[in-house]
């Protein structure tokens, strides 16, 4: 069998270009630039980016500096997907009336701008079937404004608005299952990404070019500041998230599930939790039930995914 030309096998095949450049003011050890630089390598030119308010927008374009070498626009917290829809429709109209190249439109939002504030715009864009790529970089809280809990914060995580103490043991609610919400729209392609698996991430991004219609990516973005973790450990934490089944890597093509990184012997979830200060209180005896609950849920979710791949 001939090798798939639209797939890479090693890191060295990733082109050596940077359209997102140094001098941005994201924190040391942030996971977001690792996503962005590879998105800009994998999605061909010409492209236009729409960025919801969030860490990435705030830190990459502090006037008069910009870290972007591609057309980029900042919009409000809630409407990245709506603006991207409009841009995509405008480019399509231009192409029809005057000819010209098709643009790849990419919308970027954090977990706040996707799970909570931007979900209606996202849902609308997915339903209308615009030919765009929406990427959610999920650092599991509103990190930019000071670590407030979001719909993406997992159960038991301490944030400034769900502090662990005698009243609550961190966030009392579960993390919203964003992938299921997106897949329910019947999108052509949706996938989860993780920086510790760069070849898998890059191949999924390349695959997005093959589909017409809305494509969605959910990226696990380590946040050393908000998670009270060591900044050098970002990739290691991301790797543990996959190995403990917290962040299963899979893709959904027109409703057909496929697990892309199979974990045969998952590690216990404690190994993931103990790397981050936001989960430190869970190791007290009275909070033991939360760890058991998280462990039960990640395992159930993995079993559910395994069943879905067999459909």
């Amino acid at each position, binding site marked *: 069998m001939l090798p798939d030309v639209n797939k890479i096998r090693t890191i060295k095949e990733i082109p050596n270009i940077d359209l997102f450049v140094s001098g941005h003011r994201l924190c040391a050890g942030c996971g977001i630039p690792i996503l962005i630089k590879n998105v800009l390598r994998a999605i061909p030119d010409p492209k236009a980016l729409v960025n919801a308010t969030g860490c990435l927008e705030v830190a990459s374009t*502090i006037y008069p500096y*910009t870290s972007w070498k591609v057309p980029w626009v900042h919009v409000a917290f809630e409407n990245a997907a709506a603006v991207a829809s409009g841009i995509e429709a405008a480019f399509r109209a231009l192409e029809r009336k005057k000819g010209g190249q098709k643009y790849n439109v990419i919308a970027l939002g954090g977990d706040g701008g996707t799970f909570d504030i931007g979900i209606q715009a996202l849902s609308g864009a997915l339903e209308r079937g615009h030919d765009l790529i929406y990427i959610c970089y999920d650092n599991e809280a509103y990190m930019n404004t000071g670590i407030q809990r979001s719909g993406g914060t997992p159960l038991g995580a301490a944030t400034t608005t769900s502090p662990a103490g005698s009243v609550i043991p961190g966030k009392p609610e579960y993390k919203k299952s964003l992938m299921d919400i997106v897949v329910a729209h019947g999108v052509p392609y949706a996938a989860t990404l993780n*920086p510790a698996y760069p070849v898998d991430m890059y191949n999924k991004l390349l695959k997005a070019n093959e589909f017409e219609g809305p494509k969605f990516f959910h990226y696990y973005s380590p946040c050393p500041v908000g998670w009270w973790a060591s900044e050098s450990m970002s990739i290691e934490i991301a790797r543990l998230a996959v190995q403990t089944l917290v962040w299963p890597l899979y893709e959904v093509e027109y409703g057909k599930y496929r697990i892309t990184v199979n974990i045969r012997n998952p590690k216990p979830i404690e190994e993931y939790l103990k790397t981050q200060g936001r989960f430190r209180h869970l190791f007290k005896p009275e909070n033991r039930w939360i760890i058991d609950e998280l462990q039960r849920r990640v395992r159930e979710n993995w079993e559910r995914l395994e069943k879905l791949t067999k459909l």
Partner: protein
Amino acid sequence: MSSWPRDWRELPMAGIINIAGSSLDYKTGTWRARKPVLYPDKCIKCQICWLFCPDMAINRLEDDSVEINYEYCKGCGICAEECPTKAIEMVEEVG
């Protein structure tokens, strides 16, 4: 316009930044408390550090060898942590 404006009258309207990649003028290397030191004899040119560096402060050269750009390196230490041959070591920044 491709250079910095001389006064405010030359500023573009509506907060547009028309110098692509102008943040290269902002050196984030001053943030650093620890600095990565590369030992080229141990390097196997795997590009893992180049791929993971969040500050694009590791340059990948023509022959796939790497060099660290201290003007932008924030000293997070991901490169030293992920290097499979421990060819990068974090040392305290002095002075």
